């Protein structure tokens, strides 16, 4: 039982991180109807920038404070993400207005390739570490109930809290503000939004910057857990089943979906995996999501796909 709980918690925490990446997908999809495959590359790019700047700034400017280095690196990395958002809008999206979803999807794959190459050219392709002072050691709770207690990683707890906060802020932003409403309008119909005077380019820069921010947070958390390296861009693949499970357009969906996938894959790996030879978590998440989709084609929380002929 104690072990089950541990697995459950482990899954929840992993799921929280998937949610963070999934959030980036949802944001961009909601506001521009683009299924952004570059989200993983953005996470990698942001994390690389963060890790390397934190390493370089103290050398360049000759100070030693870790806090200051991290702060400056965070600001610099965020600035890069905004510039990136602007560049993507300027050189790519603005020229692809009104194209079909699949064309936009391909364009983001192109962007992903570009970012992978660009990030590694700038920052190198070795493993780098991000140290933002997250606690590394495990904590044990409920020791009275189970032998050896239930182990929870403190790092995961911090990560979960940060993600939860981010999600609440974003949900409010979308539902309550004028810009949020404009973002949703743009997602529904580019042209109509344009016709009533919503400037597409500005909206897109905003939303890609916000997604860049989500990517940066995700990158920092993953990076400080596991180190920053090229493979970080593959976490996007882990987030995909989350997005389809939760629904492409739902911020809470990304969170709940992440948790379900996280828990589902860890439990399946540990309890079903050995029967099948292990390593099943990679496809289990997808099959789980697929199963859900057969019941609800728009995902758990997605907006109903409305077809009027």
């Amino acid at each position, binding site marked *: 039982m104690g*072990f089950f709980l*541990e*697995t459950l918690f*482990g*899954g929840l925490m*992993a799921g929280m991180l998937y949610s963070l990446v999934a959030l980036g997908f949802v944001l961009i999809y909601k506001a521009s109807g683009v299924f952004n495959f570059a989200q993983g590359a953005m996470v990698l790019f942001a994390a690389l920038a963060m890790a390397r700047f934190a390493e370089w700034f103290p050398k360049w400017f000759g100070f030693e404070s870790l806090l200051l280095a991290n702060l400056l690196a965070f600001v610099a990395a965020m600035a890069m993400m905004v510039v990136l958002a602007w560049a993507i809008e300027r050189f790519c999206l603005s020229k692809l207005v009104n194209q079909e979803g699949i064309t936009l999807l391909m364009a983001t794959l192109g962007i992903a390739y570009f970012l992978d190459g660009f990030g*590694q050219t700038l920052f190198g*392709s*070795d*493993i780098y570490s991000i140290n933002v002072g997250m606690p*590394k*050691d*495990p904590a044990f709770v409920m020791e009275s109930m189970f032998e050896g207690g239930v*182990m929870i*990683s403190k*790092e995961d707890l911090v990560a979960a809290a940060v993600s939860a906060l981010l999600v609440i802020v974003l949900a409010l932003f979308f539902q309550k503000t004028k810009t949020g409403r404009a973002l949703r309008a743009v997602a529904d119909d580019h042209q109509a939004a344009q016709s009533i005077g919503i400037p597409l380019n500005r909206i897109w820069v905003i939303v890609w910057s916000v997604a860049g921010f989500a990517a940066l947070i995700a990158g920092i958390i993953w990076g400080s*857990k*596991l*180190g920053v*390296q*090229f*493979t*970080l861009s*593959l*976490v996007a693949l*882990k987030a995909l089943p989350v997005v389809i499970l939760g629904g492409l357009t739902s911020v809470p969906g990304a969170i709940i979906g992440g948790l379900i996938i996280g828990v589902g*894959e*860890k439990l399946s*790996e*540990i309890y079903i*995996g050995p029967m099948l*030879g*292990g*390593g099943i*978590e*990679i496809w289990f998440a997808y099959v789980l999501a697929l199963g859900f989709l057969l019941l609800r084609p728009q995902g758990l929380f997605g907006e109903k796909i409305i077809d009027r002929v």
Partner: protein
Amino acid sequence: MKFKPLALAATLVTLGAASFATPAMAQEQYIPLLSYRTGAYAPNGIPWANGKQDYLKYVNANGGVNGVKIAYEECETGYATDKGVECYERLKGRGASSFDPQSTGITFALTDKAPIDKIPLITLGYGLAASQDGGVFKWNFPLMGSYWTAADILIQHLGEKEGGLDKLKGKKIALVYHDSPFGKEPIPLLQKRAEMHGFQLNLLPVTAPGVEQKATWLQVRRDRPDYVLLWGWGVMNSTALKEAVATGFPREKMYGV
């Protein structure tokens, strides 16, 4: 019409190949180096590629091998088999005297081609374990032992530590391995050893590229093995260490290749 760009490129490629095919002169041996400085395995690939080049430079600086200098050229594979095959095809025409594919997967793909082209495949501490027997793959030359050697050394070391191989009886050893041909190579040997010495072998695969190990280490924590053999590559190793710390598994009981 479709072939217009192709034909153009064809001329380009042949031109390129012609002008750069350094003929293997008597005083020079040409060795293509397949390396991977990009992709998921770059953290291992970069130092390896650098090291090899440094060594070749060192050999050349000391007058080469019996006066024969070594010319080398790098080709980036990104650890992908088809890129590796392309590199092989491209570089073999330039008079390659041997190939070091630097990847198990590429070695597999080239094993059938090498005998036809009569180019030795030199695998330094990786590649097909079965090629240890020179009769099986005549053009494969494993140096420095193979994965089997490595696995065996690990078991012997554990035996020593416990005070004799027979002391391994009843112990639990977990193999956390990269789920690919590379990671699976040592399994037959370890299974044999497990039979011989009566220890229990738990196989825990980690899906490539190896960033997702939470479940694996949770299993390690549940099973509490006496030793963990880590058969990882690239980013998998650093992740494994971090996850091990996060689950509180003692580092001195982990052995990596």
